[in-house]
């Protein structure tokens, strides 16, 4: 027989749990109070005014012939957006390979911190900042967008590539070396087949992200649908904005579906 009275057992941590819970809740309530009083987070107009405005965004565009007439133009911009994302991702996905190898501990060795440092530095910037820099450097237009997207893709893909490379089976590498293969042969026959499916899968995933981000790069003049979007918004023609948003959502969804499907088969 155990010494414990199992009918009256209590979790000894119970009291502590409730104290922690109360403290965290109070802390969050205080933060919320500060946020609302120190900044004007409250709605600037009443719900009754917002309703008709949202209707202008998401309902009216579908029934206005003058908006319908602009749909082909919008699709043109969207195609440019998708093309910017494609060019940027492709360039980034290829340039990320050498950086990823350098950053991988099992390839770069003592020098892998250089690759990792470069990748961390790149990832610290959001795309829109790169876009601003490149618009200033190479002028307005899609080329600036492509550069911004590709640099940013290197940041993420390089890190993911490096992780893939670090997880490969090194026994196969030493096996191939033991047959007298040269370094380049080991790379082509031992490393590439092990990493290629993951590399392509990550590049596709990155493409999904890049289509989304290239939609907004136009806001700073880097080409794509972002430019007419911000223009229409500034003119307060919300029906146009609504239609463009709809086209963006539609395209992004279709691309996500296709890419997810391909990625499932890759790995």
């Amino acid at each position: 027989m155990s010494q414990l009275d199992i009918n009256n057992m209590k979790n000894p941590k119970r009291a502590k749990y409730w104290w922690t819970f109360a403290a965290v809740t109070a802390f969050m309530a205080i933060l919320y109070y500060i946020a609302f009083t120190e900044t004007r987070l409250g709605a600037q107009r009443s719900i009754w005014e917002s309703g008709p405005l949202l209707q202008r965004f998401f309902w009216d565009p579908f029934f206005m012939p003058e908006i319908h007439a602009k749909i082909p133009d919008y699709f043109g911009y969207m195609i440019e957006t998708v093309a910017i994302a494609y060019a940027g991702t492709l360039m980034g996905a290829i340039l990320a390979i050498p950086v990823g190898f350098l950053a991988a501990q099992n390839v770069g060795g003592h020098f892998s911190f250089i690759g990792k440092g470069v990748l961390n530095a790149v990832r610290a910037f959001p795309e829109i900042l790169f876009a601003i820099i490149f618009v200033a450097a190479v002028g307005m237009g899609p080329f600036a967008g492509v550069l911004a997207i590709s640099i940013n893709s290197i940041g993420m893909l390089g890190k993911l590539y490096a992780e893939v490379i670090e997880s490969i089976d090194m026994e196969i590498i030493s096996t191939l070396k033991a047959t007298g293969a040269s370094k380049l042969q080991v790379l082509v026959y031992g490393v590439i087949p092990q990493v290629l499916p993951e590399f392509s899968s990550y590049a596709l995933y990155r493409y999904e992200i890049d289509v989304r981000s290239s939609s907004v790069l136009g806001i700073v003049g880097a080409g794509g649908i972002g430019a007419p979007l911000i223009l229409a918004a500034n003119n307060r023609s919300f029906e146009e904005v609504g239609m463009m948003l709809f086209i963006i959502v539609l395209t992004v969804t279709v691309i996500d579906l296709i890419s997810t499907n391909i990625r499932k088969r890759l790995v």
Partner: protein
Amino acid sequence: MIQFRNVSLTYPNGHKGLKNINLEIKDGEFVVIVGLSGAGKSTLIRSINQMVKPTDGELLIDGENTLKFSDRRLRSFRRNIGMIFQNYNLVKRSSVLRNVLAGRLGHTGTLRSIFSLFSQEDVKLALNSLDRVGIAEKAYIRADQLSGGQQQRVSIARALTQKPKLILADEPVASLDPPTSHAVMKDLKRINKEDNITMVVNLHAIDLSMQYADRIIGLRNGEVVFDGPASSVSEQTFEDIYGRPIKEDDLVGDVSNE
């Protein structure tokens, strides 16, 4: 001919893998190295092709001290040594044939091999190697589609395709079931006899060692504690090598010969 002269190997962490090994392995011999795990079997076999490099002594192969080789010389020397591993070490996503052709990499120019431009003879040789281990029909299947025994045969075919003078096998049957173990050992034995390729094989199963070896070398704590023809070996010999009584686990079990 492989000659170990006072070969020692100390790992960077201070562990002594091999202690003053003196051995001579003649061409065409089928040598089985036995010992408990950690006795230095892997270290001994891997020091022959310098996957690990001995820190002391001389390791002569056909009269040349291989420990003095430059990187380039070492690479061309390794072409002639096939190696087989417990885990097969195949590139799982590549086809069987591509895995077997990897055995020709040392003989093929880097540029040609990058574009998979193997000569017609090399492809024929690879297919022939697969045929010799009985799985030529699997040539265009991905390696990860095969069973363990089939994958080990692919790795034997890869070694054969190197046209080696010597094959090293590090626990080649440790991951296989008893019938497959016997089949793989028979393949190795047959290749040894037909091509006169020297075989150095690590095993821990006593019955397999006694059945297939010409000569048995026993290791304990990095030292050679037994060296003699397989015919002179009894279970008592193994108890001496292992330093403990034989257990059920030390045997693979006999399988009726098909």
